[in-house]
């Protein structure tokens, strides 16, 4: 038992660390670090630089651009990516639809979609959630009816993250309403330019446009866009959602944020000294660091268990990583807002004011409250923390 990396792992880490920090443009990484929204081009630029080095889709099959890494290497990759504030390669592409197509898609689908997906030539959106379904995903109502060589889609998806940038969308749709709800679902791909698809932005409480509603109104999709077998979509969705346990807790990102919070606290005046001199603030920061350290080791144990192939039986680790990871992420945004203090309040409308004005407070402070507001989502999405506790209680404690 040893916390330390092997010399090979250290070399691997140092290579990545250097690459991320030297090759991904600093303005993009600064936005990530400050928790500001990225432009479409920021994602594309970053992912293409990664992809050119084989670093965009390491978890894919080697034949399609993946890397034959050990679990520890994958772990190091995610941690270093986050610690360097590099935008994660678009999850919808590399962790979701890519692996599904690579595993269950036809050869034609692989040829057509995988290279473009890896390079972010195609931007994918995820069409899973629906209004009224929420945590009960399988109760979805969007239908796909076979009509000759096509399916005709009708319904509505929601919480479609970055759907405003999407070229294509992968959807769960109901293709058989007569069977148990999980058994009548298929996994289908649609070009966002298809007539009948419309996107309506959802503005969130932080003022950002990150999610959307997507409406399907008699949308005609070729039957060849069905992935895998008809009515097997729920299995593919489960495959996809269980695909990437590492990174769910965003430990590298939170570490980076806590280090930044510490730095800003040391620079932000408060009365006689700096915010950092406030023992209550430091106590809360210390708790976050300590809890994060415990979670990091919990995550490393999951990684180690994957390596030792003892991981076939279900274990509660995803739920634990999700619950604690989201809690600590939220604490980190709270701490940042506390450092900003009164200057967490201004929310200047740059459009109205004129974009050339300097920031009202410290140049990072206006992003603090929006980030805090925005991060309430992390304990809601991807299976709320209440759902995670249900899973632990039922699946692992047998209650």
């Amino acid at each position, binding site marked *: 038992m040893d916390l330390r990396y092997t010399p090979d792992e250290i070399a691997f880490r140092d290579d990545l660390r250097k690459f991320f920090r030297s090759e991904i443009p600093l303005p993009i990484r600064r936005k990530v670090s400050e928790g500001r929204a990225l432009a479409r081009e920021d994602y594309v630029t970053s992912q293409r630089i990664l992809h050119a080095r084989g670093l965009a889709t390491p978890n894919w099959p080697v034949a399609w651009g993946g890397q034959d890494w050990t679990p520890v290497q994958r772990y190091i990759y995610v941690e270093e990516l986050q610690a360097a504030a590099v935008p994660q390669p678009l999850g919808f592409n590399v962790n979701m639809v890519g692996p599904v197509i690579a595993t269950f898609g036809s050869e034609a689908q692989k040829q057509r979609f995988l290279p473009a997906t890896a390079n972010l030539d195609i931007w994918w959106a995820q069409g899973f959630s629906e209004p009224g379904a929420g945590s009960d995903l399988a109760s979805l109502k969007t239908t796909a009816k076979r009509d000759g060589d096509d399916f005709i889609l009708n319904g509505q998806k929601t919480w479609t993250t970055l759907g405003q940038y999407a070229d294509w969308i992968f959807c769960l749709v109901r293709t058989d309403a007569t069977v148990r709800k999980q058994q009548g679902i298929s996994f289908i791909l649609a070009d966002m330019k298809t007539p009948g698809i419309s996107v309506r932005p959802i503005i969130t*409480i932080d003022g950002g446009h990150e999610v959307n509603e997507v409406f399907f109104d008699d949308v005609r999709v070729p039957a060849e866009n069905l992935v895998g077998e008809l009515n097997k979509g729920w299995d593919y969705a489960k495959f996809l959602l269980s695909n990437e346990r590492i990174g769910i807790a965003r430990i590298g990102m939170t570490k980076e944020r806590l280090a930044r919070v510490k730095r800003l606290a040391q620079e932000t005046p408060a009365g006689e000294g700096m915010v950092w001199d406030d023992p*209550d603030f430091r106590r809360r920061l210390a708790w976050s660091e300590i809890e994060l350290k415990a979670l990091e080791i919990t995550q490393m144990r999951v990684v180690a268990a994957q390596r030792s192939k003892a991981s076939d039986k279900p274990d509660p680790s995803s739920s634990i990583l999700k619950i604690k990871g989201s809690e600590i992420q939220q604490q980190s945004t709270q701490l940042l807002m506390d450092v900003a203090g009164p200057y967490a309040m201004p929310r200047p409308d740059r459009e109205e004011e004129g974009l050339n004005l300097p920031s009202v407070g410290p140049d990072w402070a206006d992003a603090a409250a929006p980030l805090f507001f925005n991060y309430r989502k992390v304990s809601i999405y991807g299976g709320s923390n209440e759902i995670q506790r249900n899973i632990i209680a039922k699946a692992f404690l047998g209650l």
Partner: protein
Amino acid sequence: MDFDLTDEQRMLADSIGRLVTDSYGDFEQRKAYRADPRGWSPANWSGYAEMGLLGLPFAEEDGGFGGGPVETMLVFEAFGRGLVVEPYLATVVLGGGLLKRAGTAAQRATLIPEIAGGGLTLAFAHQERQARHDLHDVATTARPDGTGWRLDGAKGVVLHGDTAGRLIVSARTAGARRDREGISLFLLDPATHGVTRRGYATQDGLRAAEVVLDGVLLPADALLGPEGGALPLIEWVVDEAQAAICAEALGAMEVLRDLTVDYLKQRTQFGQAIGNFQALQHRAADMLVATEQARSMAMYAAMMVQESDASARRVALSAAKALVARLADQLGKDAVQLHGGIAMTEEYKAGHYFKRLAILAGLFGDMDHHLRVVVAAGGLPEAA
């Protein structure tokens, strides 16, 4: 011991409640008010004037209605329920509180009727960037200049400072930056040469401003209150603002609790109302406990703000603020969590209550700050 409202107070509460329901009952109305260049509704402001709210805490001989902290509590609880955006705290509690206590008879006679009539709003430009929550930390200077004063400095996050008709500015006429002595107040017209204001929206949908004072020349009679001795007054008025904030947070918490309970009843998942799930029921129950504790603390704040011993008053108000901030923070977060995604959207009300509560919790000092005040005092003041 008496926890009843008088009949007049009950009537006041009913009237304000109706007024706020009329003007803020439909959440779209609030969006429209915010879209006004002022960031608030002149029509609502006139309504407050007509009801007598704008003159409420002023003495009758000055043109007011002689209301006290209980009346202010009733106003703010209702304002919290509506998420009211008008500059009542800035004008009536902060600006008005300073004016009524420090103003000369002439100043009061000129300005209070104007405020009560709705024609004049005020803002209190005190906060400075380095000071954070320390009220005695003032770097802005006021130096004698001829028969008058010359002010230099910068004030930040001045609530409703962008639209105020007059600013009350704190500046140091003596002493070093963190001395308790040497702070004075000045009443000035923001159109005065050398005053620059930059207004902006705040994260909770209200407005504030940065104010720069660059060689601002003021006549001798711009001085408000005793030269160099303004701090106790500032502390008192900020305590009154804290009492108001506690009541406003209470109102917002109650609405957010009720929104959440309603949502739990209506929203179905896994084939049933999510309000059937016991884990959610218990968190809703905790929201009720929290609002009752917050109501008690808002009442404590209203009663203790009248305490004649200033240090006991300050500790009590810090205790009230610390607990209300903690309860508001937890309730706001729980409300968003129990709603799920819908509360994350700008369209729906709940998220706005959450944001307002988050900002109120930190206004004039966050939970840590106020708890430290209580700790430093060795605990709560003994009851009389």
